[in-house]
């Protein structure tokens, strides 16, 4: 019945082919994020290497896949995804989270200044250190960034569950993307709120990233606090029903 309802709906909006109309969902789960693309739309292939492969080097499956893609509809690639070799999805996501009011130029310049600040600080440490220590000092700002965010990810999270008229903080396992989101969110809120009025964001962010890289600093403390709360509320774990 649901399928026929969907097809009839699609029938009279003939011009809007492929647009997702109202789809029935399971009770208890509200759809918060959706896209205007229907399920038949394929993701765009941005990788330069895929297109540069000579015809002779393709296997049968790859040739079949290419022929198939010629018949399929493909979503438009977002403006932020480039075929640049220097592109990093984590950095892009962090820049988007730092952005305020759609000012991507400012957010991106802050990000690049932060990476530069991290690099310069590490170079200073490198030149000041003895040869044995020099091998341990990491100078690549990208590895520092990734490692710092990985160190900030919580293992277990807390969710407010309404039971008997009260909200209880229940420990709950988190999906990967939720953990990454929380790490980035905590980092950005920490840098925005706990800094001196005259200090600029790149300097503060670089400081926090370096501290998180070495597993100390306020963001790591917040992660440990979350873990302790989850451990303390262990008894409420059975309030979770999923």
């Amino acid at each position: 019945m649901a399928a026929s309802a969907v097809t009839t709906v699609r029938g009279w909006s003939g011009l809007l082919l492929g647009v997702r109309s109202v789809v029935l969902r399971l009770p208890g789960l509200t759809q918060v994020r959706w896209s205007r693309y229907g399920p038949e739309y394929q993701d765009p292939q941005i990788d330069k290497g895929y297109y540069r492969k000579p015809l002779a080097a393709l296997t049968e499956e790859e040739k079949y896949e290419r022929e198939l893609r010629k018949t399929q509809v493909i979503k438009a690639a977002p403006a932020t995804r480039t075929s640049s070799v220097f592109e990093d999805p984590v950095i892009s996501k962090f820049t988007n989270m730092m952005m305020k009011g759609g000012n991507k130029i400012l957010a991106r310049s802050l990000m690049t200044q932060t990476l530069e600040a991290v690099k310069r600080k590490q170079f200073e440490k490198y030149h000041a250190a003895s040869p044995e220590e020099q091998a341990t000092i990491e100078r690549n700002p990208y590895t520092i960034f990734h490692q710092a965010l990985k160190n900030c990810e919580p293992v277990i999270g807390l969710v407010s569950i309404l039971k008997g008229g009260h909200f209880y903080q229940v420990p709950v396992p988190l999906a990967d993307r939720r953990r990454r989101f929380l790490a980035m969110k905590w980092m950005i809120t920490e840098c925005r709120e706990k800094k001196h009025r005259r200090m600029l964001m790149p300097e503060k962010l670089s400081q926090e990233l370096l501290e998180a890289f070495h597993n100390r600093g306020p963001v790591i403390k917040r992660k440990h606090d979350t873990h302790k709360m989850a451990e303390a509320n262990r008894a409420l774990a059975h309030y979770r029903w999923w």
Partner: protein
Amino acid sequence: IMLKGMTRLISSVHKLDPGRFLHIGTQAPQCLAAHLDNQVATESPRAISRTSENDPAKHGEQHEGQHYNISFQDLKTVFSHGLPPRFVMQVKTFNEACLMVRRPALELLHYLKNTNFAHPAVRYVFYGEKGTGKTLSLCHSIHFCAKQDWLILHIPDAHLWVKNCRDLLQSTYNKQRFDQPLEASTWLKNFKTANEHFLSQIKVQEKYVWNKRESTEKGSPLGEVVEQGIMRVRNATDAVGIVLKELKRQSSSGIFRLLVAVDGVNALWGRTTLKREDKSPIAPEELAFIYNLRKMVKNDWQGGAIVLTVSQTGSLFKPRKAYLPQELLGKEGFDALDPFIPILVSNYNPKEFESCIHYYLENNWLQHEKAHTEEGKKELLFLSNRNPGQLERLCAYL
């Protein structure tokens, strides 16, 4: 047929193409020497981006694209106030100051080496788009002149004098003009560190009265005037004016050779953003420093050279895309500077670009894994369009 056979045999032995061998003829030994040099360069790729020749006087065409080292001593004395801020950061990060030898600077050094000090001072103007390296070419020529023991009169950025001045005093010498005590005193301090040994040798040729109690007698060394300017900040601009006047007068005598180096000379003839107490705008000639500097940049003195840069970066009320001297100086400035030698500073050529990337790789500045690959280099070339300033900013975060 015999000749063709002979040339083919010889060329196959020497690995040169036959056409070239026929054309060169008597210059064969030099050609062979050049071929050997090329072989040496490809065998030791470490030699591409650096040269051990640290004396700018000996820089020639063969050093084009290579970086040479500036000693820390020179940095502290000569370049206490001349270098662009990003370059200063780079020097601090790498613990060394390396400047690339480029064609516009080599051209200027050639002219400076062949100057006739009996003729009036020749004006050279570096011009070019933003980020192409005008200020660093100027610094290269200043380094050369410092090594040749000239007296360096270096104004790091003339635009700093025509904007953002907190305290403007009415000049003590001339009621119509304005003084800038802070900038003048900092400039005098830097001038002193750059030219210590000259200040005791040059003698003042007039008596100058500062106020009721202090005066400088005729025949006292120039160092005293500079000290007076540094200590009594109110008279600093007048001290600067005296220094300029004395140097101009005495440069033709032959005791020393004078180099006047001004960065952003288009500030002298533009507009200022400074206002009087009644909010009416001040023209540049009403600032005492600018007035004296204009006299310095005129070519009515002998015994030295004037090297200038026009830049849009700090300029006021000039469009962003303007880079030609005519556009930036305006009619007044162009007429004042009229017979000058323009030197275009353009983006890197492919060899210089490779050299720059190589220098960064040597210092481990490019930390991104993909930056070492060919793809990465091609992308850097595309993104920066071989512009030195843009390339530096790109490599800073990669």
